[in-house]
């Protein structure tokens, strides 16, 4: 397969993730959309790595994976603690930087 075919799939997946962040108001689904965007970028990294016959792209995917895991842990902890104090997780209600 050509490289551009993989990159186009990656672009479509990234756009779906952007749309999820823009449209949905449930912070959990906004988080999943961010994961979708990270994975779309990972796909293009792996495709370019295979195209260039070099392992560097796979290294970047490995590091992105670690950053994504750290981001999910901290983000979900923030969502749970917001839910504990406010009993409500609509992102339109969260417009203050304090509890």
């Amino acid at each position, binding site marked *: *397969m050509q490289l551009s075919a*993989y990159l186009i799939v990656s672009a479509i*997946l990234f756009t*779906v993730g952007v749309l999820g962040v823009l449209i949905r108001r*449930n912070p959990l*689904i906004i988080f999943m959309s961010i994961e979708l965007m990270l994975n779309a970028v990972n796909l293009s990294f792996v495709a370019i790595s295979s195209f260039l016959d070099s392992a560097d792209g*796979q290294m970047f995917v490995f590091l992105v994976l670690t950053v994504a895991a750290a981001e999910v842990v901290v983000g979900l902890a923030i969502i749970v603690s917001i*839910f504990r104090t406010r009993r409500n997780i609509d992102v339109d209600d969260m417009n203050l930087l304090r509890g």
Partner: protein
Amino acid sequence: MIDIQTQISFFVLAVASVASAIGVIAFKNAVNSALSLILTLLFLALFYLQLGAMFIAIVQILIYAGAIMVLFLFVVTMLASEADDTELRDRIPWQRWVAGILGLTLVGALSYLLFTGTTIDSSAKATGANRLSHVVSTQGNIEAFGQALFHGFAFPFEVTSLLIIVAILGAMVLGRKA
């Protein structure tokens, strides 16, 4: 023909992954969205297998589709009573249309750049003994990955451990009873 098989599997995977990605943002229930995201991640792992990145494919299934999504499902089910009725009120009615227009613009701009932009110079390809396919054929998949990780990317790999420690501390501080 091997090439035809690759093309057919590519298109099947492409359609399946985009469809399940749309499912992530279209389902009303957050549990369905999470399951759809797991499906997307599995299809992406098959993409990686097709591209010859075996280790990344396995890590994708174990860590992403396994560990991270279990964490997601945990929180989704914990907040399930609240997660459903947040979508009822539509405070900014034109938001969806603007988001749709912006999304179409983004995918159009990205495709335009892909079709007309500069191509990757073929002199950027690795040559000689550095070629990934050469290392894979002489030593194996995991060996090639480990060699690249600990030779060229040893410092970023060590910095990763710092990031994980900070994330663990952050989760502990946030999760503690106030």
